[in-house]
């Protein structure tokens, strides 16, 4: 363990955090504004990756494929909202969980039918394929840095939209009290449809950006969804700022934890025990973190219903 590895893992952690944020942003608004639990949000992440893969194989151009993928993800998101999700808002959470779980199963199978059950890979775009020398003995892939930059840029855009525009005010207002927003003459369903569509697109963006780093496979979004829920609960449901900060915290904690845990356990236990305990502790870390945060702040770091923004 040296500082170079630590720095690399820190960057990887931030990059993971940025991906988590892109997924969590839509999830926290959808959950916060409409109280709707959408387990199928991870599906949007997967769809983003597959669509970009498909368009890439047609156009052979990463940016074009990404742009087309995003537009299609947005359209699919709006379509799913109109056809399915809209009918679930007034149902209780159990119905929502069951129905959206059904969508996961359906879309995962559909993806297998169209693209096959195997894993696919998307090459890193040409211009971003190199590495740069960060310190004397640390090289880091340009693509991963670009991913961090894109994520931060999207976060900034979202922050401006949510804090400075009228739509943003209504989204925040809707996250704390949608009934009153409605009574004051704002069509909250339409507002929600827009939020839903763009949330789906952002999850798709995360999937598309992750595709060159990870493999594309059916169900690739399902595990991330659980972590995304951890993120929005830590951040405070309905809060974009909370989602951003929590996503970075969880991303870094999870990545560093997996690097350090075994060594750290080695300080207490003998080597073989540490090898067993370390990884288990590492995969528990974010949940322990969530439990700790909730103990002190039961509404999360930035509760939409409470005081801070």
């Amino acid at each position, binding site marked *: 363990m040296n500082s170079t590895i630590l720095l690399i893992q820190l960057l990887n952690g931030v990059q993971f955090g940025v991906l988590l944020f892109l997924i969590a942003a839509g999830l926290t608004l959808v959950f916060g504004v409409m109280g709707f639990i959408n387990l199928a949000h991870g599906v949007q992440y997967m769809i983003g990756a597959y669509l970009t893969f498909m368009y890439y194989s047609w156009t052979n151009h990463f940016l074009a494929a990404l742009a087309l993928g995003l537009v299609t993800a947005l359209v699919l998101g709006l379509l799913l909202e109109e056809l399915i999700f809209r009918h679930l808002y007034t149902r209780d959470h159990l119905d929502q969980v069951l129905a959206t779980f059904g969508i996961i199963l359906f879309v995962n199978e559909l993806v297998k039918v169209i693209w096959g059950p195997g894993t696919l890979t998307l090459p890193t775009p040409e211009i971003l394929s190199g590495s740069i020398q960060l310190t004397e003995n640390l090289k880091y892939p340009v693509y991963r840095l670009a991913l961090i930059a894109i994520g931060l840029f999207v976060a900034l855009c979202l922050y401006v939209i949510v804090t400075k525009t009228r739509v943003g005010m209504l989204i925040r207002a809707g996250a*704390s009290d949608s*009934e*009153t927003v*409605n*009574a004051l*003459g*704002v*069509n909250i369903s339409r507002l929600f449809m827009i939020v839903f569509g763009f949330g789906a697109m952002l999850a798709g963006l995360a999937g598309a950006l992750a595709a060159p780093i990870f493999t594309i496979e059916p169900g690739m979004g399902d595990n991330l969804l659980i972590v995304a829920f951890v993120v929005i609960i830590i951040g405070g449901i309905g809060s974009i700022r909370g989602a951003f900060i929590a996503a970075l915290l969880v991303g870094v904690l999870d990545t560093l934890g997996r690097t350090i845990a075994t060594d750290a356990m080695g300080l207490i236990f003998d080597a073989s025990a540490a090898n067993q305990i370390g990884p288990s502790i590492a995969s528990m870390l974010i949940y322990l973190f969530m439990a700790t945060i909730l103990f002190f702040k039961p509404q999360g770091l930035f509760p939409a219903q409470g*005081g801070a*923004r």
Partner: protein
Amino acid sequence: MSLLELKGLEAGYGYSQILFGVDLKLERGEAATLMGRNGMGKTTTVRSIMGLLKPQAGEIRFDGHPITGLAAYKVGRAGVGLVPEGRRIFPTLTVEENLRAFARSRGNWTLRKVYDFFPRLEERKVNLGSQLSGGEQQMLAIGRALMTNPSLLILDEATEGLAPLIRKEIWEKLAALKAEGLAILLIDKDIAAMSKFVDHHTLLNKGEVVWSGTTEALTNDMEVVNSYMHL
């Protein structure tokens, strides 16, 4: 044609019916009250008018059009401004955002005019909704409803839980709004304060109208009204 008219309104939650045929009329520019003890159906009536609760039977007309069971946002757009029970200020929005988010430019209420009407709100404009006192919250809730330029303002518990001085100010402001020609439907327990500017009163008991009349009639019938208000 009345501005607001309820005919035989029945409503409730699930299997428990709260309203059993409520009739009510409110003319343009008129101020009226809904009175009654807690649990007698005042808020349920308001929620039914606002489209927040689907009536089981009866009819609600606003400005000549039926609005029974209409989506709440359509009722709001039609010109009913709600100051909800508990004020329900958006805690994560600043005072100014609470006002600007709901601006609807179809009348003369603008951000400027609301600030002139409630100077206190301008002083607090960068504060979050969660940082306001109860009185400031009520001013903001009224200002927020005014920003939609309503032709009818409904206040569910106009002064509940406020200090006497603030109450007095709210009553003065409501009287001023009425003088400008805005119709107001009020829920409150302070009969004396309301009687200074209110034209008409409706008393609810167990989901039915048990008494209704002008302020003058109310003063003569105080014993009957009191028997329903205090138990």
